[in-house]
């Protein structure tokens, strides 16, 4: 009863968690300032491999939420959400979402102890970059939309079909693929340089995240042990949704800060534009969006760790809110900045691109809300 109002859910970070955030923020400010992000996105590889190696060597970020028995740091999704928030804040171009979130959680959601033992430590250490290939033509991230097939050929499996978009599909050394095997869904792994796999880098709205199209033509694959592939896929997408929502929160927070700083510094009509209510109120609404988004992310991350029964709803809640909030704040950031905000040299468009791209990743807002309605028993 008394618990109803204060809540069973823990929405406040511990001191240790705050320290993690602070040290990560310093690390990224130092090693991945926007000037470096700008350089990185002009490269062919499209991500910062040197930074990736430091993230692993100095901070063990890739294995943050991997159990220590599998070579990880053994933390939970609350810590993971802190990492994602900081990466999103800095628009860090890295295959972190693909490898440390999507592929890692796919392996953890399955029932393949051998695969976990063989593959996960290297992914957790950042030595292997992995990704998860789910979506196909039209970008649906649902089991029902999957047409890629796996057939047994002698004692090995071979994949046929096209996955698109695949997050960091070019950078990946290892691709976890969801495909139909006979009448059921299954998870497979394919090497990044496997014969019969052709990878195409896609032109993307978001310049700071690489998306690719992967075409499998009789590509040899290893089938992973899994009792309930649809259940596992839902689990992966839920955990990834929480992480992505946290990343969106980080971007939103940065947009809010850029807007407020600019509204204080920029003068028109003889005074700072932030003193005009039209601008001030836009900034206030951004702040409201940030506070609500942060509450949703904290709740969803807590649910992922401590109340798995609440995760499907909590993940949908966080994704639905953060997607809409981040895009609105990113668009309003350009508005607050006016002309300078529409230039290539200003960072606002990078956030705007990321916001819309993230909103539509893992299934867009209409899908997210329909799934949420279903899970709420509507």
């Amino acid at each position, binding site marked *: *009863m*008394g*618990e*109803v*109002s*204060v*809540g069973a*859910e*823990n*929405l*406040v970070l511990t001191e240790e968690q705050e320290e993690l955030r602070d040290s990560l923020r310093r690390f990224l400010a130092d090693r991945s300032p926007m000037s470096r992000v700008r350089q990185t996105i002009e490269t062919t590889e499209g991500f910062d491999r040197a930074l990736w190696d430091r993230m692993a060597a100095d901070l063990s970020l890739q294995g943050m939420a991997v159990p220590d028995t599998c070579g990880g740091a053994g933390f939970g999704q609350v810590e993971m959400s802190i990492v994602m928030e900081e990466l999103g804040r800095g628009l860090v171009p890295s295959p972190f979402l693909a490898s440390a979130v999507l592929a890692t959680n796919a392996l953890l959601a399955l029932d393949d102890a051998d695969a976990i033992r063989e593959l996960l430590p290297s992914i957790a250490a950042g030595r292997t970059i992995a990704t998860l290939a789910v979506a196909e033509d039209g970008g649906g991230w649902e089991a029902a939309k999957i047409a890629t097939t796996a057939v047994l050929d002698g004692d090995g499996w071979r994949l046929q079909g096209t996955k698109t978009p695949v997050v960091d599909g070019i950078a990946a050394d290892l691709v976890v693929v969801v495909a139909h095997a006979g009448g059921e869904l299954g998870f497979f792994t394919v090497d990044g340089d496997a014969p019969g796999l052709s990878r195409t880098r896609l032109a993307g709205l978001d310049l700071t995240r690489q998306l690719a199209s992967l075409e499998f033509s009789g590509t040899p694959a290893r089938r992973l042990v899994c009792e309930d592939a649809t259940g596992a896929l839902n689990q992966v997408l839920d955990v990834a949704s929480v992480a992505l929502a946290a990343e969106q929160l980080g971007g939103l927070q940065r947009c809010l800060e850029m807007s*407020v700083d600019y*509204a*204080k510094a920029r003068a028109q009509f003889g*005074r*700072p534009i*932030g*003193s*005009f*209510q039209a601008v*001030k*109120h836009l*900034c*206030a*609404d951004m*702040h*409201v969006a940030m*506070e*609500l*988004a*942060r*509450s*949703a992310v*904290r*709740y969803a991350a807590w649910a992922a760790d401590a109340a798995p029964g609440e995760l499907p709803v909590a993940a*949908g*809640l966080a994704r*639905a*809110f953060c997607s809409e909030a981040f895009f609105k704040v990113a668009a309003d950031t350009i508005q607050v900045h006016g002309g300078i905000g529409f230039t290539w040299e200003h960072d606002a468009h990078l956030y705007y691109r990321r916001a819309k791209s993230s909103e539509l990743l893992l299934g867009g807002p*209409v899908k997210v*809300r*329909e799934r*949420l*309605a279903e899970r*709420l*028993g*509507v």
Partner: protein
Amino acid sequence: MGEARGPAEQNFRVRARAWLEANATRRSDEDGRQARRWDLASARVFQGKLHDAGFAGVAWPTAYGGQGLTPADQRAFDEEAREFDLPGEFFGIGMGMCGPTLLDLGTDEQKLRYIRPLLRGEEVWCQLFSEPGAGSDVASLQTRAVKEGDVWVVSGQKVWTSVARFADLGALIARTDPDVPKHDGITMFVVDMHAPGVTVRPLRDMTGGATFNEVFFDGVRVPAENVIGEVNAGWAASVRMLIHERVSIGGTTRSRRGAAFATLTEVARSRGVDRDPVVRQRLAELYVRERVVHLFGTRLAQEARLGRSPGSRGSVGKLAGAELARFSAGVAAELLGSDAIAWDGTDREAARWAAALLSAPAGGIAGGSNEIQRNIIGERVLGLPKEPQVDRDVPFRELRVGTRSPSPHDGGS
């Protein structure tokens, strides 16, 4: 979060729960709306029992009739009490705003005279701030108090006064010096609502109901010892009371989680539209908006427990809550369709949502409008510069106020 509570508070909580179970009625309605309407006489009896049992003024000093416990104990009681039907409508203003301000600023005589009867429900209080010409800009108020010997003579009009028609006492702010800038010539008084010259009229609002009042003062004589704080220091006293108001609103009106979503999902089902994809989108959206506002309230409460004061971030909840009320009422109207505009007199569901639609605008105006909340967030949370103020250093009588033009020869009215 529960582990942070001390054993003494736990004991107090257990005692409070037991007393409430034995003496109060549980709220029956799913979203916690008041199930019964209290009349003043029975409310007073209940409040007296509550005080006798040690649950009124939990964190207030014992010297004046309080229980001398901690704010954490008071929160524990409030949390327990949320499940029950208490007569807060009569005593909320006194307990949440007037009492705390008197404790902060009152003389010892005032505290001895007023606090105990307030806690026992023997005297009902109202707050006399807003005027027809002074809403968001309360400091531009025009009600005058003129000193005549050892009394102040008050004339003017207040509006949107809750509980005034039941009130015995009011905390009034009035202009005591029109020749100085607006903030510097205001004084706060305790005024006897039964004094000659006080007229209370119910104010019918756009819902058709009349929960608020207009209060007219016509030469009302207020003894000099009724000044709260210092003469002409009433603005600081008002700010203090408004801070207490924000805290008390934050503590009592937090909605149950998912209340509108749950009710409207039922409405959708009962009307056979719950499979409609557009309706499902709207319901999911409602769930999201309602839940995040609730989670934000929970997060602030958890931070408060850890000693981090919410400060001006309370405005975020106020603003988001007001917008949510409009959104929910809009979804309800969509679901109800033509039943939202015309209904069989026995259709309580339709009537209830029509009432929600009609009361939704109040949330964006009362207790600081949405625009004021955005200013607070912009200026106090984000540190954005204030608008240039044209009225700061100008004597009040030269200001343009409400719809009144500057009148250098007359201080108002």
